């Protein structure tokens, strides 16, 4: 529930212009997809990790991490067993039907790690968006692109937690009626879900009618809407956007120059010392919001200036 409901925290990130937050997340995602070098993925992961920790988001980041790490292990495992490419054979497994004798290579193993790291960056960026970006503000920014669609998304984010609450409540009531959920067989459990989902659907339909009535009574659909924006641009936004632009351009340059590219197969490419420095600068540029946040929290002078 709390993962969905955005919470206001005492930090700089929740007080940024929504476009700043959105661009930060988008840049992370785009760079993660462009980079194939594990070192660059690591650079992105470190940056977003530091920012999330600085925002006090360990509690909310943890489930994303667990999910990504589990996926990372699965990806590495599958790729190592089923990939089969690469020349550095670590060991050859026993014979399996259809699969034959899987060759586990160092290249396939590390390729899996690289992919897993990309997933880590993407899920962490999603976590940042979920918890630190003013989503209603983002929706307002996007509304000129499609007002009705954006309103539907806004309402969905509002009603999803409510649906979860209702589900738990109905579940409790049905259990009290003797509907078995614990200690039941899978078939019984699925059968038990029928009334719960049925009630949930009926409740959602009834609620949607009431919401529609309230919207109609407040003039929705009575003519063209005009979206009210109230977001302010502050120096903190410009500072972060400048660092972000620098990081993004550097990332593009790294891709163009081939520093952020990495060849796993048939043999692992060696690390070029020249590619390390841009990765380091990239991390520093993306960590800058965390530094500003620290200053905002501890330095009154800075707080009043940005």
């Amino acid at each position: 529930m709390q993962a969905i409901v955005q919470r206001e925290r005492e930090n700089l990130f929740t007080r940024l212009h929504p476009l700043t937050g959105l661009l930060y997340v988008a840049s992370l995602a785009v760079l993660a997809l462009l980079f194939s070098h594990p070192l660059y993925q690591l650079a992105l992961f470190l940056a977003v990790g530091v920012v999330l920790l600085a925002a006090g988001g360990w509690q909310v980041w943890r489930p994303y991490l667990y999910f990504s790490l589990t996926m990372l292990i699965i990806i590495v495992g599958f790729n190592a067993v089923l990939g089969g490419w690469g020349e550095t054979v670590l060991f050859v497994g026993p014979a399996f039907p259809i699969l034959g004798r899987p060759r586990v290579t160092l290249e396939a193993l590390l390729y899996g790690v690289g992919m897993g790291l990309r997933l880590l960056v993407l899920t962490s960026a999603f976590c940042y968006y979920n918890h630190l970006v003013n989503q209603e503000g983002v929706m307002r920014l996007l509304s000129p692109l499609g007002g009705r669609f954006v309103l539907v998304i806004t309402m969905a984010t509002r009603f999803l937690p409510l649906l979860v609450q209702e589900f738990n409540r109905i579940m409790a009531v049905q259990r009290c009626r003797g509907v078995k959920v614990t200690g039941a067989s899978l078939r019984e459990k699925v059968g038990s879900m029928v009334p719960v989902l049925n009630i949930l659907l009926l409740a959602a339909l009834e609620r949607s009618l009431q919401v529609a009535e309230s919207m109609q009574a407040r003039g929705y659909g009575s003519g063209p809407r005009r979206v009210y924006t109230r977001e302010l641009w502050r120096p903190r936004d410009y500072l972060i956007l400048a660092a972000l632009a620098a990081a993004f351009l550097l990332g593009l340059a790294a891709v163009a120059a081939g520093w952020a590219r990495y060849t796993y197969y048939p043999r692992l490419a060696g690390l070029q010392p020249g590619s390390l420095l841009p990765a380091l600068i990239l991390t520093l540029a993306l960590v800058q919001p965390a530094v500003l946040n620290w200053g905002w929290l501890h330095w009154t002078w800075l707080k009043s200036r940005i």
Partner: protein
Amino acid sequence: MAPLDLVEIKDLTYFYPQTSRPALEDINLSVSAGQFVLVVGGSGSGKTSLLRAVAGLIPAFYGGTVAGRVYLQGEDIRNIPRRRLVQQVGIVFQDPESQLVMNTLEGELAFGLENLGLDPALTRRRIVETAAALNLGPYLSRPVAQLSGGLKQKAILGSVLAMQPRVLLLDEPTSQLDPMAGEEILAAIRRLNEENGITVILVEQRLERCFHLADRVVIMDRGRIVCDAARPGEAARWAVRTASPFVPPLARLFAGEGWREVPLTVKEGLRLLNRELSRAGDKLPPGEGPLAKKSALAGGTPLVKVKDLWFTYPNGQEALRGIDLTVKAGDFTIIMGENAAGKTTLLKVLRGLLKPGRGLVRVLGRDIARTPVEELAGEIGYLSQNPDDHFFLPTVEEELNYTRKKLGLPVPFDAGEMLAQLGLAGVAGKNPRDLSQGERQRVALAVVMAASPRVLLLDEPTRGLDYQAKRDLGELLRRLREQGQAIVVVTHDVEFAAEYGEEIVLLSAGRVVARGEKHEVLTGGVFYSPQVSRLFQDTPYRVVTLEEGRQILRRLRQGRDSKLRREEIL
């Protein structure tokens, strides 16, 4: 139409689609600018439909067949473009959760203004002014999900007010709120009416809290206006004369005893009482001591035993701290307390939905921590706040059979007697979701009772019920108690607790702060005492029910004749 009439309804009759009974029948009503009109009546009496008609939602949103006209300042509302109409008439419904559409309070306040296509600068100004008027300023940037029920309803009220309507329609705006939050909403509405001159048409069930606020009271029954009283006192006398339940307790007490003046507040009641006392030579009649004797609490077998119960939620909030409680067969225990006092948590622990952190909870001799919820389904009935959580089958009968089937009891069974006992004769073949709120509450109770449980746990069963439905429920629970069932009710409703409860447990911040027979706990308090107790607080009598109040008033009149000394009593 008088020159100042803002709303005029003429010969209005309305049928919802696919219904043969009119929801509104031959309605004629004129409301002048600045008036505060209270509309009361039972479920299905047409109150909500009346508001919908004034808001133009009938027939525009609902369809159906309509005859007659509704005029706003002399203009037929069907000819008023919707954009202009919503700036003249605003409506707030019962449940805030079913009205809020945005994620932040500021977004919600802006919603209606955005729909009107207002300039952003004007929108900003209106938001600021509305927030200031309703004291919402500090919460503007808060996510809606974090707001309390009262603030959510205020957000809706604000969203409507920001559109600056001249007529404000309110359909039981406090029915889903606790009393404190409800008071706050009503106070805000009163301020808007008195200071801004907004015309208010309020539909409300908590008459003791709003009867005195109204300039005029309209009573509805089966789609018709049966009483249109220019003053609330007149409506109270009419209601008592016609045995209508829609009258606040104090008015019922005095009007029922034939007093010419009818008080609407405790203050007015005290004035009348003191005047009568001085007429009687400051003498109250002798009694047999305090009327309310400490009624011996039922001495049945203990069914629920709670010892030093502690419960902490995963976020660290200690919801229950060292609770001790015993409930015996034939007990009627009421658990009261402010929001987040731990009432619902306690009920859920008793039912096994939450497991105790520390301490012991034994229900029917079984340790609740080690018993799966489903195993006690036949022994403990649990009624949640929302009766609709129970219903998914097309008929009441099927719902009852489903409960029994799940418990391995024989089906089909003859539910006729039970339904009749619950005042539900004739509904067995109906869809529970088509019934009124009061009937749904009782059907949910029937669904629970189909298992013949020995303990009944009810969470806020009076929420949203009208006086009649509340009275029916109270009488029913009393009968069940007399049959030996143990009843535990969580409620905010002091009047209900006083009238029907036996033992009161007052919780605060997870601890029991008072516990005892209702005459001990509910008298002498400031907040947790019914109106009738507050009226007699300066007498030696411990009065909590209307019947006890009636007896004192009768004695008082008798005492005027008998010349007995005041010292015996005061």
